[in-house]
């Protein structure tokens, strides 16, 4: 009899709620009962609310068991878990879970499905197919496909990827670089992490394609230090790719050389800003650079550098495999394709949902998320990380479309959606936006460095009920200054959440004296 395959994710969210202990218990129970199993530590499907989500393969179908604790394992084995037997943790076939079934998985399709550290499994699931195709088609055709797809930077800025690649390709230099921004610092976001932990070879292939397209032989991954598990998985995958000849010289007899260096950050949020990231990669303080020159012309060590977010890069192989037009056929208006939205905070069914642009925030929060975890009404939703505006419950019907969000003074950013119930104090959230900017500002420009500290002070005075109207005007003026005069998005967009609170949640500034 063939060995039964059992999947237990090795992914931060799953491990953070006991997946390692579950895996150990399964191995022990199988040994005790003399059951021959193959334990595979897969990535996460993104249904974080069900973690640890264990699967057993029965007649080619993977049967899911959700929220499994180590203490459940003995009773699961007693209930013929290995044969997909009934148990209170049993959900049913993984592909029939509506949360996963109703997604548009373009970029994350291998996450959960494969063994992240098996290069054979990766290749059995179209791995390196796009890279080989790129070698056949040539760099121009690759850039054209990316441009045709309408893919825009998924890190937050939404700049067209095809234009960026074309600029680097057209710049002559003896050395060029690919820099992958994996400094996913926005609260409420974890899609980069799920991809790196669940499909590291997919990222490696994507970076090699980018390098081939623009003429770069060296790639850097700048990974935040808060992701130790992603670090160990990526490091092992890079090593395996080198051993198998998919990194190094003359990859797959193409004459193309490419290798990847994995660098760790050191807890600075602003290093997610692309030029601060370059400084940090050069071993310096992560201080934002003036632009121009654009990194595409003078980037890392002064050389032309294509800087892309993890998800942007990982969207490319299927654009080559399936065609740019097909990607462009998904989404709405100028927001083409899909985005991996991340449902976080006070939400019943948190996790990653890859959907075409155009879906509304309400659909995601209600249909996928199932409302708040507390069961109380939604009061505010922050989209796009700490620099994103807070939406009111009435604004949730806004379609997720870059331009539609700009119109309401908000941004999609990296696709993080953080839900708050009606117990939230929005004055505290506005204060936190300024406080976070004060803590994380790189200090180069005055509006951000000083403005954020003054912002905290002004908000504190408002909360204390001191000259509320004067301080309100002062805060609006401060927001104007920061927005107009800061060097990068840190100072320039911190006013977004603050203004949204002033506009829609001003009642939370009322102190007890005011209410009297």
């Amino acid at each position, binding site marked *: 009899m063939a060995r039964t395959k059992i999947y237990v994710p090795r992914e*931060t*969210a799953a*491990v*953070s*709620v006991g997946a390692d202990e579950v895996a150990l218990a399964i191995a022990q129970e199988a040994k005790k009962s003399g059951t021959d199993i193959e334990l595979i530590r897969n990535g996460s499907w993104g249904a*974080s*609310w069900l*973690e640890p989500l264990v699967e057993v393969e029965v007649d080619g179908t993977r049967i899911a068991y959700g929220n499994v604790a180590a203490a459940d394992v003995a009773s699961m084995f007693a209930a013929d878990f290995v044969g997909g037997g009934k148990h209170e943790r049993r959900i049913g076939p993984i592909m029939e879970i509506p949360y996963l079934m109703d997604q548009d998985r373009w970029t994350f399709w291998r996450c959960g499905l494969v063994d992240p550290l098996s290069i054979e499994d990766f290749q059995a699931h179209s791995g390196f197919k796009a890279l080989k195709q790129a070698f056949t088609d040539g760099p121009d055709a690759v850039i054209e496909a990316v441009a045709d797809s309408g893919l825009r930077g998924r890190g937050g800025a939404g700049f067209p990827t095809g234009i960026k690649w074309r600029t680097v390709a057209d710049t002559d230099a003896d050395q060029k670089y690919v820099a992958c921004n994996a400094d*996913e*610092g*926005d*609260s*409420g*976001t*974890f899609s980069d*992490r799920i991809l790196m932990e669940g499909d590291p070879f997919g990222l490696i292939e994507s970076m090699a394609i980018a390098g081939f397209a623009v003429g770069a032989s060296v790639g850097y991954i700048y990974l*935040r*230090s*808060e*992701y*130790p*598990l992603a670090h160990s998985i990526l490091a092992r995958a890079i090593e395996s790719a080198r051993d198998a000849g998919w990194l190094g010289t003359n990859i797959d007899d193409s004459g193309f050389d490419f290798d990847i260096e994995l*660098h*760790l*950050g*050191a*807890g*600075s*949020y602003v290093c997610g800003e692309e030029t601060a990231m370059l400084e*940090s*990669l*050069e*071993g*310096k*303080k*992560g*201080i934002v650079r003036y632009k121009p020159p654009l990194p595409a012309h003078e980037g890392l*060590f002064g050389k032309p550098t294509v800087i892309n977010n993890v998800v942007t890069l990982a969207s490319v192989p299927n654009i080559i495999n399936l065609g740019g037009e097909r990607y462009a056929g998904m989404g709405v208006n100028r927001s083409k394709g899909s985005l991996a939205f*991340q*449902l*976080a*905070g*006070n*939400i019943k069914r*948190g*996790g*990653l949902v890859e959907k075409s642009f155009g879906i509304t925030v309400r659909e995601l929060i209600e249909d996928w998320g199932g409302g708040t*975890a507390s069961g109380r009404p939604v009061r505010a939703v*922050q989209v796009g990380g*700490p620099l994103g505006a807070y939406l009111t419950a009435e604004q949730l019907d806004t379609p997720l479309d870059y331009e539609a969000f700009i119109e309401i003074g908000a941004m999609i950013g990296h696709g*993080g959606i*953080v*839900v*708050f*119930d009606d117990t939230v104090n929005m004055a505290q*959230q506005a204060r*936190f936006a300024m406080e*976070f900017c004060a*803590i*994380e500002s790189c200090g180069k420009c005055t509006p951000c460095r000083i403005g954020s500290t003054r912002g905290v002070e002004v908000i504190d005075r408002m909360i204390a009920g001191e000259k509320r109207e004067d301080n309100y005007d002062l805060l609006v003026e401060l927001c104007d200054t920061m927005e107009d005069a800061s060097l990068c998005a840190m100072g320039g967009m911190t006013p977004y959440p603050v203004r949204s609170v002033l506009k829609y949640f001003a009642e939370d500034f009322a102190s007890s004296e005011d209410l009297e």
Partner: protein
Amino acid sequence: MAEIDQATTSQIVAQYGAKPELLVQILRTIVTRYGWIPETTVRQLAEELNLSRADVHGVVHYYHDFRTEEPGRHIVKICQAEACQAMGSRKLTDYARKILTVDLNETGNDVTLEPVYCLGNCACSPAVMIDGKTYGRVDEARLDVLLDNMREAG
């Protein structure tokens, strides 16, 4: 945690080819192993990498991860960012301060308590990192258990 000795510092520098552009990675390696960067190490790194002391000092003080004081035997980080705030991290932090009898960014009874701004575990908030391992869905009762386990582990 111990203080890094001179020979080990030199070894780590050599492991990175004594390249000044790898300063952040060198400091990273030291802080992962020893928990902090003493002033004597700053001087030694400046010398061995042919940088000014001001350069090295600047980098060390810029990044939150590069502690310049010796931490406790255990490091407990509690996420202070929005997704965790939405699930009660402010209250959880107050509780941790009370039971550990230390404030944020302080060390006492062998434990250093630190804020962290997002562990990327936002669908399982609130999140806590203890000695480099991330935990999700942490309420007060679970924090008690995690801290007991931490003490038991030594």
